[in-house]
């Protein structure tokens, strides 16, 4: 889960209450944030992926205000800043193929306040969290924060020839050319491919030609560095997806809003195309909340006053409608897009109590699948034969697969380790491993298991099929083909079928000592004597008989007689 370490004092200042660790734990239990660690000055919280806003002191503080009652309802954050910005972004067509989306907002400190070190640190840390999460590592969206008093609008977003781009990177003091920057800078090595195409790179330049940043890599120092003392900032995001860009900007507002900063939109003009006033990014968005939906989610018992109080506690604004409410949600709550999303907020603010749990009143008939009962019958038979019952993994090691030879089973493209690199297609792969791990126990050793395998099946939905096998191995002096075959005969007799054996070449067995059994012409079992060149390296000092009944093949043949 996403997590962040927050400044405890700043959080409490926003919440309007001093909160000790245990009290905070209790308050957050009903939220989608959880305290993972806490000391006097800092707390580490993790959140569910839909509530990234709670990873900032601002977002969590606004939530706590609602729960504690120190402030309720939608914060009044929207300012009429449009008048001061006749122009915002102008977007050149050249960016369309590489990174077409851009959006932004202006934030302005309240009277007598300015950007302090704490808010700046919070904003920078939250910016990186958003890059990694909804920004999909800056591909879908990346953010920049700029001081408005050191830039001139309009800001132009374009793809330019690198040869004409000169700027002072945020972490440097000397001007460099874009080619050198992309060649040498570590950030460019990571994010550069998203911001360049051939010999061109994306730029944000102000009206005087100063480079604000090379999206999505790095800001320039001249006009791209927000500092303590700044009072008005531009928050900007570029990306490949309009919605991700808007969500990133909306979330980025919350640290500022919680400190009383005002928010205004940035117009976006696409040269020769449409113009947007940018308000959709910063304005609250409305979501319908029908009364009947609340009943569906949480049952009866939600009076209008309860719903409106819970909405206010959730820092939302509910406007009564004939069928329910129209709910205004702020831009830092992109998780609220449909009625059920808002309904969940009401439910969670109300609280979910175990003692209110009830069971559905309808009656349904429970049952196991007939195939499950069929498999259990075989598992019981194996136990009845005195075979120990291991429980082995479907994923097997590279060495276990290589040992048996033959056609390789399905290979994991991205295995965690060589130990779990293949999907077994027969149980023998696993059961030989079991024998190898048990050589210290002496003999006889007899084991059997009913478990799944996955076999290739070209042309099917996944190109493979899950099948269930009943596998057994018998390791003792005198063990061999006859032992294994006799047990197969016995197992088949338990479901009233008789198989016909035919010689078969089965990898891992001694040539001439392996067979396939058919029922009504269908192959249902394989058996044989394990080859000595396999047993010797495993340290198994006795012969081993092996058999596997394909229960998935057998089931359709016996179903009419074993189900009622």
């Amino acid at each position, binding site marked *: 889960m996403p997590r962040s370490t927050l400044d405890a004092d700043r959080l409490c200042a926003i919440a309007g209450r001093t909160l000790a660790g245990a009290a905070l734990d209790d308050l957050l239990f009903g939220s989608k944030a959880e305290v993972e660690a806490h000391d006097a000055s800092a707390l580490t919280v993790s959140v569910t992926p839909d509530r990234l806003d709670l990873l900032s002191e601002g977002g969590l503080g606004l939530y706590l205000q609602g729960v504690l009652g120190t402030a309720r309802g939608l914060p009044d954050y929207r300012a009429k800043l449009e008048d001061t910005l006749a122009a915002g972004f102008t977007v050149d067509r050249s960016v369309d193929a590489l990174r077409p989306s851009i959006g932004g907002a202006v934030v302005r400190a309240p009277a007598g306040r300015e950007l302090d070190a704490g808010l700046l640190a919070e904003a920078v840390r939250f910016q990186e969290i958003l890059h990694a999460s909804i920004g999909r590592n800056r591909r879908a969206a990346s953010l920049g924060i700029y001081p408005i008093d050191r830039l001139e609008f309009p800001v132009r977003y374009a793809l330019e020839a690198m040869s004409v781009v000169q700027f002072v990177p945020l972490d440097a003091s000397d001007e460099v050319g874009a080619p050198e920057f992309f060649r040498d800078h570590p950030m460019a090595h990571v994010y550069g491919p998203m911001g360049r195409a051939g010999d061109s790179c994306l730029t944000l330049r102000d009206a005087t030609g100063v480079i604000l940043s090379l999206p999505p890599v790095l800001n320039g120092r001249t006009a791209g560095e927000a500092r303590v003392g700044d009072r008005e900032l531009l928050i900007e995001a570029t990306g490949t997806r309009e919605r991700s860009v808007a969500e990133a900007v909306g979330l980025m507002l919350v640290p500022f809003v919680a400190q009383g900063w005002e928010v205004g939109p940035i117009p976006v003009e696409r040269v020769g195309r449409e113009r947007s006033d940018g308000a959709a990014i910063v304005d609250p968005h409305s979501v319908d909340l029908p009364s009947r939906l609340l009943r569906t989610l949480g049952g009866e018992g939600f009076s209008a006053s309860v719903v409106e109080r819970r909405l206010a506690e959730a820092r939302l604004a509910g406007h009564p409608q004939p069928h329910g409410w129209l709910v205004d949600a702020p831009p830092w709550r992109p998780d609220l897009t449909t009625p059920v999303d808002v309904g969940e907020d009401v439910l969670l603010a109300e609280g979910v109590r*175990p003692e209110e749990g009830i069971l559905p009143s309808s009656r349904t008939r429970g*049952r196991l*699948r007939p195939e499950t009962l069929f498999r259990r019958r075989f598992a019981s038979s194996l136990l009845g034969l005195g075979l120990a019952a291991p429980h082995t993994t479907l994923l097997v090691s590279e060495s276990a697969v290589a040992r048996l030879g033959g056609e390789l089973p399905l290979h994991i493209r991205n*295995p965690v380790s060589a130990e779990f690199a293949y999907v077994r297609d027969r149980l023998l792969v696993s059961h030989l491993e079991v024998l190898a791990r048990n050589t210290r126990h002496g003999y006889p050793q007899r084991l059997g298991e009913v478990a799944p395998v996955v076999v290739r099946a070209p042309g*099917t939905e*996944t*190109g*493979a099929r899950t099948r269930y096998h009943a596998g057994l191995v018998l390791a003792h002096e005198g063990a061999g083909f006859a032992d294994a075959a006799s047990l197969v005969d016995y197992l088949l007799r338990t479901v009233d079928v008789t198989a016909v054996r035919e010689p078969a070449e089965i990898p891992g067995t001694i040539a001439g000592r392996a067979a396939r059994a058919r029922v009504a012409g269908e192959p249902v079992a394989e058996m044989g004597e394990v080859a000595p060149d396999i047993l010797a390296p495993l340290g198994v000092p006795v012969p081993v008989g092996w058999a596997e009944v394909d229960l998935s093949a057998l089931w359709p043949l016996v179903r009419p007689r074993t189900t009622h």
Partner: protein
Amino acid sequence: MPEASGDAPVGAAPVALSGPERSLLQALRELETPSIDEESLGRKVELPADQVRGSLQRLRSKHLALLEEEHRTTVRLTPKGESAVAKGLPERRFLAALERRGGTLSPDEAAEAGLDEEERSAAIGVLRRRGWLAEGVPFRLKPGASTPEGPLPEETVLRQVGLGETDVDPAIVDALERRGLVRREHRSTKRWSASEEGRRLPLVSEGEELLGSLTPELLRTGDWRGRSFRPYDVRAAVPYATGARPNAYVAWLEEFEEILVGLGFEQAEGPLLETEFWNNDVLFMPQDHPARSIHDALSVEGTEGQPPAADLLARVAAVHEGRALPGATSALGPGWPGPYDVRVAERPVLRSQTTAVSARYLAARPTPPFRMFSIDRNFRREALDARHHIEFHQCEGIIGEEGLDLRHLVGVFTTLADAIGLHELKIRPSYFPFTEPSVEGYVRHPRLGWMEVFPGGILRPEVLGPLGVDVPVLAWGIGVMRLAMVALGRNDIRDLFQDDLGVLTGGTP
């Protein structure tokens, strides 16, 4: 294992008795008193003491005779003590000589009084310790010292010991023992009786042949009639047998399945290798969701997937892209950023959640009310440790019918927790792309504290709409391995994949 005698089965040694053992056991069984001492028993059977002792020990090792030992301590006079009783204690005789000599006694005079050097020295030590005799020579009583008028305590105890009395002052006995006047003698008496088994054991007369194994030949001929079988020492070690017993984890899973069946759930099953469509897309998980990345899901190579039915694919694509379902006028929601890619939908992956089984079940349009469960394997790119495994079981469950709400989900969690013996539950909000609201149920384990066990919620319209389900559906996916670890007392999840034959056959690992 060699047989003890005859042809008795291995490990069940018959109880063989020698002649003296038989005689002694017979005598013990015929006792009129509860037990008898060894000497008396020896006299009864007219056997030498050594043979009696050895045979009784053998009967005892065969659990046929019981031994009680009585330990007794007696105090006796030594020759020196007997002399002291006859002549008086040295200190008494020294005092008498002193009195006779008018209260002063030289060493020579003391010798002449019949006290040898050892007695003299003992008498002088005692009298000085008691403050009667002054320091220096000649010996004289301390001025003002009053000598005893009656017998000294030592004299009393010596007399009692001489008379065989047992209730004597142990502290004075200690002092007399240190002076060599008395000695303690410890004696133990062994008393024997027949044990319950010894009384029941059939005793045959000397020379009679006991039967060993009951053979087919004996059965056929009837020669066993009128004869006795050699009894076995049933406590003797037997060969170590191995066998099979149900795998504890698998058995636990089956019990959990039975609980769900009892609650009216029908079982469902799905393929372990799924397409991303069924594993994720149909569950409204965005195609670029971090949990779908190569870092979380296990993909396979060497096989190609196929798209699902075209109409279902179109409906799922529509909700992902925020478009209205075919035939509908408005979208169920804004969908996810980015276009829906059918090539992603076709990719085969090892199933990472059993919710895929629920999706397939719902796609078959079950008739409400319905309840479904599936306990099966899933796979994720987890680093292996005591709490995480790349391969894990999940218990998936859904309930669909009119009128369901979140309280019913809580009710199911409470019922399941109760069924496995965990009675305290609390619920907190959670998040899953396919449910809204989403919650996480925690149960309190008496030893381990609060545990996250029940994640679930109400399936989103974006999941139900494309599948054509028009009733609310509650869904959850329980980490049953974690519950099994608690129930089975395992501390490491890897132990649930048990393949140690020692453990599996009921022996030691």
